[in-house]
């Protein structure tokens, strides 16, 4: 068997699976976004525009998209997603960096804590969501315990739009921060110790050493981490469903949740596809950025 055959034969199955699962959905949803289909009413999609309708009617093709762009719920979700992404990136990377600095170095206490860092990441996000909802419960949860101890009136986190938003956000930050902290610890180890010691001798305080010597050298890792976290934030779903299911009202309804509702609660397959494609655009942009950043040295 020729070498050439072998190398493609080896790659084929794995690669095929991956590509099919990427391309098939993309193509299908793209197609569907230009058709009309409500699963509750019919079993197949119907056309929004046929050549026989004439060129002047071609605008109907974009019905789903124009509906999306004028849908205040969609814009609300977009705004929720944007806020969620920005804040979670800042908090996650910030805390992760602080934890990495805290846990870097020798000592059994630090070693034990470092080994615990993998746990939040290993937990199912759905489970974390359920857990957060439990803890936020005014009767049964940590929130209840605290409000009782402080003799506050019944605290309702889930009913308050801002509080609920921060609740969902905190579950995401809790899930991802330790993972990034582990990555940053590895990055800290690769900063040459001598550049830091030289700065100490040159006259810098430990704080100054961190900000003007260590941090600049960490920048490549930090920037990749931020882009990665942004991509993950845009995919958040499990916790939204488990904690608030989009509520109160639509205060925590991210775009993925919005699409899910449109497609599986209201059975609007074509509309969901269109909004899905709108979400693909920023995600792809971030992906391109990620690839650029990581392929730089290669």
């Amino acid at each position, binding site marked *: 068997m020729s070498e050439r055959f072998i190398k493609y034969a080896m790659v084929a199955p794995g690669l095929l699976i991956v590509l099919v699962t990427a391309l098939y959905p993309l193509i299908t949803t793209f197609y569907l976004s230009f058709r009309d289909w409500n699963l509750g009413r019919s079993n197949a999609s119907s056309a929004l525009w046929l050549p026989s309708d004439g060129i002047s009617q071609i605008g109907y093709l974009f019905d789903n998209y124009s509906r999306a762009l004028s849908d205040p719920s969609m814009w609300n979700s977009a705004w929720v997603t944007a806020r969620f992404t920005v804040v979670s990136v800042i908090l996650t990377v910030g805390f992760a960096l602080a934890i990495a600095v*805290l846990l870097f170095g020798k000592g059994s206490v630090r070693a034990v804590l470092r080994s*615990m860092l993998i746990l939040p990441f290993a937990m199912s996000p*759905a489970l974390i969501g*359920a857990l957060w909802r439990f803890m936020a419960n005014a009767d049964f949860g940590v929130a209840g315990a605290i409000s009782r101890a402080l003799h506050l009136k019944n605290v309702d986190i889930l009913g308050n739009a801002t509080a609920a938003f921060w609740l969902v956000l905190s579950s995401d930050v809790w899930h991802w921060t330790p993972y990034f902290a582990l990555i940053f610890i590895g990055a800290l180890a690769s900063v040459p110790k001598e550049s830091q010691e030289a700065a100490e001798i040159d006259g810098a305080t430990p704080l100054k050493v961190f900000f003007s010597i260590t941090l600049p050298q960490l920048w490549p890792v930090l920037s990749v981490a931020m882009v990665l976290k942004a991509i993950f934030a845009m995919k958040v779903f499990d916790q939204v*469903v488990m904690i608030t299911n989009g509520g109160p009202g639509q205060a925590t309804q991210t775009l993925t949740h919005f699409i899910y509702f449109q497609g599986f609660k209201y059975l609007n*397959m074509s509309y969901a596809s269109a909004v899905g494609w709108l979400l693909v655009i920023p995600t792809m942009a971030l992906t391109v950025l990620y690839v650029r950043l990581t392929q730089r040295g290669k």
Partner: protein
Amino acid sequence: MNSKIMNDAMNNDANQSTPQASQTAFRAPHVFRRWLGTFGRGVALTVLFIVIVLPILWIVSAAFKHYVDIYKLNITFTPTIGNFFEIMREPFRVQAKLLNSVIVSVSTVIITLPLALAAAYSFSRFRLFAHKSMLVAVLATQFLPPVVIVLPFFLMFRDLGLYDTRTSLIMVQTAMVMPFAIWMIKGFIDQIPLDIEESAMIDGATRMQVLVQMILPMALPGIITAGIFCFILSWNDFIIAVILTSNNAVTLPVAMSLFNREEGDLWQLLSATGILIMLPIFVCATFMQRYLIRGTVAGAVR
């Protein structure tokens, strides 16, 4: 320079006072600052510990509480394992969901690993058509919103009669974890020196034999790590399962979500189910760390 001035001042002091005095005065700020730093660090470490442990402890303790204890928020309580029995009875029948989870996740890993190994080996050792783009394409699928990916499969499975089956779950989850597996295993294979394969081929081995007899044993830490990682992803998955299943093929995370009712959640049962989800993963995660470290060290030593 500053220190010269300080030095002169110090010398003057030294002439007038005992050496002890100048030593102590100079030393105090450092000692205090260090003590403050250690204290602050201790506080931070404690806070971090609490933040990580508290949620986990919360759910673990809830799983062993009677409903009454949960309602009353007792810190001390008489533990019970009754919850675990209750979720196995009607109407929950968690053991069926547990079985689903096990079958789906194990099958996913079993299918993914060999394919990923072959693909990773090929990517590592050969230059393929549009090599760089292919590599990027493999990873890029990870960044599409899962909801966008699952929706068409939902439609397709519905038409094929595969809705609510374990098979459909296995198919989509395999596709979801495959890129991770390829990427991780490739990283390990990259670190294996070429000489070993080349001498094997000179000795008469075919590529396949090289892969199975040489690469597989040496990349084993990486393969195991990738396998554990994929298992975790599959076991914890919620969005794919919730869309593609409704009754028969329901997995544990979805089962857990069903304990959220409109009226009165059964937290103690939910927690018990949560433990079932958590336990294997915690075990895996601990193993993964060991292998991760070993794998990295092995690469460096080589």
